[in-house]
């Protein structure tokens, strides 16, 4: 029976012959199969699936090949975390260069219109909110991109009543980023001769001491957060898990099977839901797990803190995806959809080879995917949630949703038109803005004031 064994080539020769679409569909199938195995803990099978995927996926192939490459890496990472020693050893020489991170953020800013649109909307909202104000204080949570504030300086400079005294407090955990920011902004302010003060705070957002923000009475306070607030959701289930572990030690078995069952149902349901209206928010994703909370203590505290500063305006930009589901399959499916859209953006706007594209895909999206798929608890920072969740959350923290400026949206639309790629769209929803690729919302921008 030796004749039975394949005589030549790779064990899956026919895989190489698949055309792009066939391969894509097959990859989706394999990914979901693999994820199912990972979710149910059958690592042998997961391994076999990974092996097959590796025949097809490629970080520089077509969109689905690229996505598959990063998702498998993430799934493998998750598997590997079952052996913490192994996992740590394999990552022991990993170095993260701040300069590289800054570079990647920059490339993301430049390759996509998302941040630009968010900045235009934010700046326009700020400009309108501080009209006539003489003292303005802007708190930038996790600032990385000086371009936003350079643009604002220019706008304020052209204000009929003259520029205000402007203070920007920037929060970031890396000093280098803040230095770069300070340099750029001070230079610009000097050029325009605007009274300007830069107040850097080296801190993680979760450890931010509100006192350090040095908010003074009499100044118009503005808070701006771009793709950062969701990280504060990371702590809750950690705390809660500990608590519930104690509480339900005996029930563990049943919990487990419930989770498994949920996996099964969510798969088809999510796929279906997604088809029906592009997306229908699954209202229960945060509450569907018996383990996860409906409220987030850390987030609530932070928002309450901000509320206490009574900002005149708060503008929040977030990834508009539901990546905070309690089960792996839920998150994987959602992530597949949203990162598919992001990778599609690149595929249709950038040629395949540039290093920048690979870097954004690997170092930004790839890492996010890995975080969403492989991490749990406090480690899992990329807890992107849909706008309606944010609205609920901010509303219950005492903020009132303000409609974004019409003129801002007009500018944003023009900016997107200038991109000349009709895949990018802006959708207005009750005064908030969703920035979409085709019909899929990818980012949300919303403005908030303090409810008295």
């Amino acid at each position, binding site marked *: *029976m030796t*004749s*039975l*064994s*394949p*005589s*030549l080539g790779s*064990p*899956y*020769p*026919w895989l190489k*012959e*698949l*055309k*792009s*679409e*066939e*391969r*894509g*569909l097959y990859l*989706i*199938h394999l990914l*979901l*199969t693999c994820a*199912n*195995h990972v979710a*149910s803990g059958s690592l042998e*099978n997961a391994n*076999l*699936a990974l092996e097959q995927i590796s025949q097809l996926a490629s970080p520089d192939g077509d*969109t*689905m090949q690229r*996505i598959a490459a990063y998702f498998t890496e993430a799934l493998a990472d998750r598997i590997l975390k079952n052996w913490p020693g192994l996992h740590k050893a394999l990552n022991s020489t990993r170095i993260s260069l701040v300069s590289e991170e800054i570079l990647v953020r920059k490339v993301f800013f430049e390759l996509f219109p998302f941040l630009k649109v968010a*900045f*235009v909307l934010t700046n326009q909202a700020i*400009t309108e909110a501080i009209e006539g104000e003489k003292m303005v204080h802007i708190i930038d949570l996790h600032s990385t991109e000086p371009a936003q504030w*350079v*643009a604002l300086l*220019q*706008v304020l400079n*052209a204000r009929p009543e003259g520029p205000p005294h402007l203070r920007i407090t920037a929060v970031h955990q890396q000093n280098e980023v803040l230095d770069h920011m300070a340099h750029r902004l001070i230079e610009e302010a000097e050029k325009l001769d605007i009274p300007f003060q830069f107040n850097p705070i080296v801190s993680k957002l979760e450890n931010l001491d509100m006192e350090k923000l040095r908010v003074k009475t009499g100044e118009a306070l503005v808070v701006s957060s771009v793709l950062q607030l969701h990280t504060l959701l990371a702590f809750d289930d950690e705390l809660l898990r500990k608590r519930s572990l104690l509480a339900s030690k005996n029930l563990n078995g049943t919990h487990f099977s419930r989770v498994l069952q949920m996996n*099964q*149902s969510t*798969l*088809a349901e999510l*796929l*279906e839901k997604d*088809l*029906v209206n592009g997306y229908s928010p699954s209202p229960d994703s945060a509450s569907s797990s018996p383990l996860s909370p409906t409220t987030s203590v850390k987030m609530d505290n932070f928002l309450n803190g901000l509320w206490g500063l009574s900002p005149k305006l708060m503008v929040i930009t977030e990834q508009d995806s539901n990546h905070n589901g309690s089960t792996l399959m839920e998150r994987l499916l959602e992530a597949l959809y949203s990162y*598919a859209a992001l990778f*599609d953006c690149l*595929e*249709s706007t950038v040629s395949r080879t540039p290093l920048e594209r690979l870097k954004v895909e690997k170092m930004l999206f790839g890492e996010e995917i890995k975080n969403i798929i492989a991490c749990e608890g406090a480690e899992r920072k990329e807890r992107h949630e849909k706008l309606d969740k944010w609205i609920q959350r901010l509303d219950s923290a005492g903020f009132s949703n303000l409609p974004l400026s019409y003129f801002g949206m007009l*500018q944003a639309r*023009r*900016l997107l038109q200038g*991109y*000349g*790629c009709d895949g990018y769209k802006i959708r207005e929803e009750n005064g908030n803005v969703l920035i979409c690729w*085709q019909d899929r919302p990818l980012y949300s921008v919303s403005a908030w004031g303090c409810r008295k």
Partner: protein
Amino acid sequence: MAAASSSSAQVFGNRELEDHNQMKQQHSTTPTNISSTAQAASAQKKKRNQPGTPNPDAEVIALSPKTLMATNRFICEVCNKGFQREQNLQLHRRGHNLPWKLKQKTNKEPKRKVYLCPEPTCVHHDPSRALGDLTGIKKHYSRKHGEKKWKCEKCSKRYAVQSDWKAHSKTCGTREYRCDCGTLFSRRDSFITHRAFCDALAQESARHPSNLSTIGGNLYGGSNTPSLGLSQLGPQIISSLQDHQNNQSGDVLRLGTPLHHHHRPPPAGQFDHHILSPNFRPQQPSAMPSSAAAFFLPGDQSNQQYHHDQDHHQQQSHQHGFLPNKPFHGLMQFSELQSNASNVNNNSPSGAMLTLFKTLANLLMSINYHIISLTLFFSGLLISNHFSAENGTSAGGGGGGAGEGPNIFSGHIVSSDQMSAGAVPSLYSGAMQSNHASAVGHMSATALLQKAAQMGSTSSNNSTASLLRTFGTSSPASTGPNKASFVGSGLFGADQNDQSHLQDLMNSFTAAGNSSIFGTPFGGGTEEPKLQQNSNLPMNSSLGGSDRFTRDFLGVGQIVRSVSGGFASKRSSEQQQQQQHQQMSSLDSESNAAPSSQSFGGSGGNFQ
């Protein structure tokens, strides 16, 4: 407000706008290029309108070469900045506090404009052949009368339009098809056409009459394969019946082998993966003369599906089809199979496939697979895999005597289990369309996901939804008697002579698809013991059990319709039936398998 807008323009840069305009252009040309190749294929059939036959009342515009090629025709009088569009200039003027006016959208249809090529010798210089859009004429002028400034670094091909060049550079060298004769092709279609006529190929195919690797391609849907694959299933089933009639021990192997013949020309060159071992080479092609080929692939249909030149090869390979009275290793090989099973299961689907080919069940599965996998099994799988995983080793358990046979296959490919067959008809047509599309260009990941999801929703909206859903809780397949219908109802049952007809068969196949017979996709070695049990499973009597399983609850009628639709796209399905019927009889007479042919003949009316 004006200040704000101008500042944003500064920050986000006019440079970017221009860049992106370029991207847009590039983008718009890329699909055109690709689709033109697709059109080329059909060009022989349908003559296209000559480009540039404008509406007679359109306004004809003749631009000088300089104006035509100017990138920024609209100049701001204050700062001399140029714009591509007047609207943009007007918006810009606003920043200078100059009077500005944007064109309002009017309700009435704007006057159509057509553009002349400035080159006097060009056909498009004539107003009657003017082109309908400005970008089009620009590109035309550059391509046909301009300097080819852009050179591909890899192949030195030159382009006049940057976007053409970019589009080319993206793919240059990435796709290469090398024929054994040494010729290189960058395009798959030209490669295939070439190979049809290449001598090297003929030699190659003599040495390797068929190749399993084609199956892989087929399973996952070569663009043309689904319909063909399906259309041929019928005949194979028939043949299996006939074989069975002739020889109860069943030359199962034979049933499997035809599968890999039907679709593609015998591969060579880069497609050449010789998995097929000598044992499985079809023997004595003469046994089934060209009528067999005709049976599979009536000539006029093949034109629809294939390049006519491919036909030749298909026919060749079809002749290898089943060889009625050829002695083969039959079920005896189950034991060997078992010994190979773990290897097969663990390592490679293709290896597993070999094994598969030895069993009738394999045939069924492939059918299943053809029906379903081609058209995306995912949705069902999502659930089913999970289910199988939970069921652990019993995953493959289609249950019941016959159901276990397939356990053998649980080790590989995909569990076709919950593929709701109800989803199939629509999926099927969807797949055909999309295959068509895939010839044009590759789908975005979003589109792929949507397609996959569509399968999910179609399936659960269907009458089979309940089936699908029940999988969450337990395996219905392993409890009811119907699961046995896998091979059961029509195929080998004792009751072949009565009401078993194709629809039954299809039902049972799809039913098999719905039961979790095929188990976990990567079942590993866990099924080995079962294999052993099954080794004395000569598709036995229990199989015949459930011919009650005839209701069309999987919507199989539609499958059959869609099958025949794909099979003979221009023919009405009735004709199709008749034809098949005839062919069946002819086949019968050749193979002396009268009894089954009767049952089949009788079923013609039930075909739909």
